């Protein structure tokens, strides 16, 4: 999953660092796609054969598609990765409240049974 970078260390850290930046850019593009910036009394202006605010929205969504695709390609989903602490620490938090987490564990199917 991780690729070696120039300094010989795994490239995974660099990839993960870029992800939030790209996601923040996507959020900015979503904000720009909504025509807050245009007065609703202004006359029709065309861009690429469309009202300019529509063309801006489409261009924003096209850019979102490209960036989001890049983010997904850079998102390593490892089926054997350690689980979220929200799942692994539930027994501790339940015990701290004086209730066992056995119910949850028991009710979960055995992973071995469901794997092909």
């Amino acid at each position: 999953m991780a690729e070696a970078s120039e300094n010989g260390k795994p490239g995974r850290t660099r990839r993960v660092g870029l992800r939030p930046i790209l996601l923040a850019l996507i959020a900015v593009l979503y904000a720009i796609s909504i025509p807050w910036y245009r007065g609703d009394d202004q006359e029709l202006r065309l861009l690429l054969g469309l009202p300019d605010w529509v063309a801006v929205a489409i261009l924003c969504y096209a850019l979102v598609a490209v960036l989001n695709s890049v983010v997904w390609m850079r998102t390593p989903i490892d089926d054997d990765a350690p689980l979220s602490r929200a799942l692994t620490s539930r027994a501790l938090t339940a015990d701290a409240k004086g209730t066992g987490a056995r119910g949850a564990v028991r009710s979960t199917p055995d992973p071995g049974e469901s794997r092909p």
Partner: protein
Amino acid sequence: MNFSEVGLLALAVYVGILLCVGEIANRSRRNLSPGDHFLGGRELGVFVLFLTLYATAYSGNSLLGYPGKAYRVGFSFIMATGFMMAIIVVFHILVPRLRPAAIQRGYVTPGDFVRDRFGGQPGGRALVLAVAVLMALALANFLLAQLKAMGEVASLVTGDLIPYSWGVVGLAAMILFYETRGGMRAVAWTDAAQGILMAVGLITLLGWLLSGSGGMEAVTLEVARVRPEAVAVPDAIGCANWLSTILLLGLASVIYPQAIQRIYAARTGRALSQSFAWMTFMPLLTTLVVTLIGIAAIPRLDLAAGAATDGVMPVLLREWAQQGTLGQAAAILVFIGALSAIMSTADSCLLSLGSLLVRDLLGQTGETAAQTRMGKVLAAAVLIAIIPLALERDLTLWRLIELKMELLIQCVPAFLMGIHWVRQSAVATLAGLLVGTAFAVGLTLMGTPQWGGVHVGVIGLGLNIAVVVALSVWERQGIPGDSPLEELA
């Protein structure tokens, strides 16, 4: 052969192919376990996974409802491209953490995650049930809308040679057959074929519309002439509604049970991320296309105010079919593509309903064949129960359909927050869900679906999250060594 006869023949060929796929999928199954039936043995590769995600995400509403909506409101419905794309963006919050858990803990339904995350806490079982009830209501509602759309399209494509009621019952029986025989494999494989048909049909239709109208600029100028408000910049309330719609659809659609089950069904995590990398472009090829089709129809059609705007697409297709053999063939292709979109969503809803009823509502877990059989029986029972409602052609269910997303979005904290925030408790999540749901449903039923352009479901979600955070922090204050600030997993 006239349009109706060619349509009937095309429909017969299409249904024949679906039945064959169902039978092949049945022969490909490994066993009768829920994991094999409801998740296709968790072996969907990139290509099939991408197409099944695509065909499931785009329903009859996307192909018939969206052009009508764009025809009615004009260019501001371009927001639809944004909210369909937002779904694939919001998945970033959920998928990277849910997928490993699903594989390592053997989840089959969305409720399996909720049970695993909250089941051991006080109120956990009630939360699982509450989430399951909201999801089952949304799925049943969605299935009903698809059945009605199936009847309409079957009647349209065959020129009423197949009446509405026969279309509903016959096509529902087809879905039940191949879904029961082949499970997720049959659904995914038919979705793949249906997705291709849908994309080809839509792009062909847009090409015909634009070429016949002198290009996009000519269409825009003509729309501005005949209906100036359709090109007008949205006002402040319109902009707030644009953002609210993106939030509502983007967040709620991620919680669709059939979408979550496809996360579980992928062969590998890498196949899943690659499928999403492709899926993110599909709103540009589908939602944007149907929006432009609806807008291009504004100067061509003069539907009376208050008329059912879902009829925009069928009227356009009939007009197209009158322009010679090529137009007729292309129009039938689009009709079958629309039917594909509807059936692919209906079959996914039905499959998810079966698993959800047996595991999340009845509380059965494990991997037994008996559970799979019960899931099939329950799905069939729900389908049979819904058919009489679908046969009421004039039954207006728009308020219930509106409610679907307002309900689903209230499950967001259980999934999108629950998988990240260690200290989130079951009681707090249940309380938030009840407060958010009561608020959204109450105001919608009282005739106030929006406040200042913002959907009451989105405001309800805000209340829901506030209750979840406040109660979770308050509950943990009594636990020694617990600091509410430290725990974002």
